[in-house]
């Protein structure tokens, strides 16, 4: 679709707005991998805002199902094993690297963090290399 880039820009702006809410009210950055990682600490005083965020994401997904189900197209035709390996790497890598696309890519770069810039360039580079490799291995058509 030619309008894809417009939707991408608008959606991105909405994301930028959302993390501003977290910053303005709670004084926090929205690093989703970090928020989830923190839940696994099971610290009573630290749980509520984290769980609420995840519930918000989930609820947003529910809302999208009703008002914009198109958002759930584009699934990949991969095996569960393939998905499992992906999950393991994402979980392991984001905690090791202290962040993901939201924390480093959006929030970190927005506050001109060199760490986040380097992280973002690195994980994008890794992704590009991975696709090339998966192509060569015949995993992707």
């Amino acid at each position: 679709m030619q309008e894809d880039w417009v939707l991408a820009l608008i959606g991105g702006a909405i994301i930028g707005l959302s993390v501003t809410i977290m910053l303005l009210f709670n004084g926090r950055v929205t690093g989703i991998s970090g928020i989830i990682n923190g839940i696994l600490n099971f610290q009573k005083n630290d749980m509520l805002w984290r769980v609420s965020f995840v519930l918000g994401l989930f609820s947003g997904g529910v809302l999208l199902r009703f008002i914009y189900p198109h958002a759930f197209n584009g699934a990949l035709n991969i095996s569960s094993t393939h998905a499992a390996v992906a999950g393991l790497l994402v979980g392991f890598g984001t905690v090791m690297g202290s962040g993901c696309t939201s924390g480093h890519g959006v929030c970190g770069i927005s506050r001109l963090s060199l760490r986040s810039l380097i992280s973002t360039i690195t994980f994008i580079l890794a992704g590009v290399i991975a696709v090339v490799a998966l192509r060569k291995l015949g995993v992707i058509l």
Partner: protein
Amino acid sequence: MSNNNMKNALASFATGLVFALGLGVSGMTMPQKVLGFLDLFGNFDPSLIFVMVGAIFVHFIAFRMVKKRKTPLLDHQWHIPTKTTITPSLVIGAFIFGFGWALAGMCPGPAITRLPFFETNTVVFVITMLIGILIFRKVDKIFKLNK
């Protein structure tokens, strides 16, 4: 304090809700679109660039405005990361994450946003993501990687 905690939770919930809507509108909940961006030398889809531009444009400006305040609205201090050193863990972790990202076209945010659709692969991804987190925490404890 508990009154504030509820308000903090509400703000968090709102953040998550709006974030998910942003992901949906932008197309980032579609693994194929993410893969299209990473498929730099194949069927390249530049959408992700526009998503990041939109997000960073808004938040860069907003961050500077908000940060002028002494404190956030519902807390007495800022909780913004202060680390500046480029560590091996940062880079290696990013590389590992990037690889996993390419494999399923999902990262934490989109995965949870897709969860209400209850596809097997998304559920599997989220579960193993949690396992991956726990594995690293164990490894980190043993080898003290993230000091």
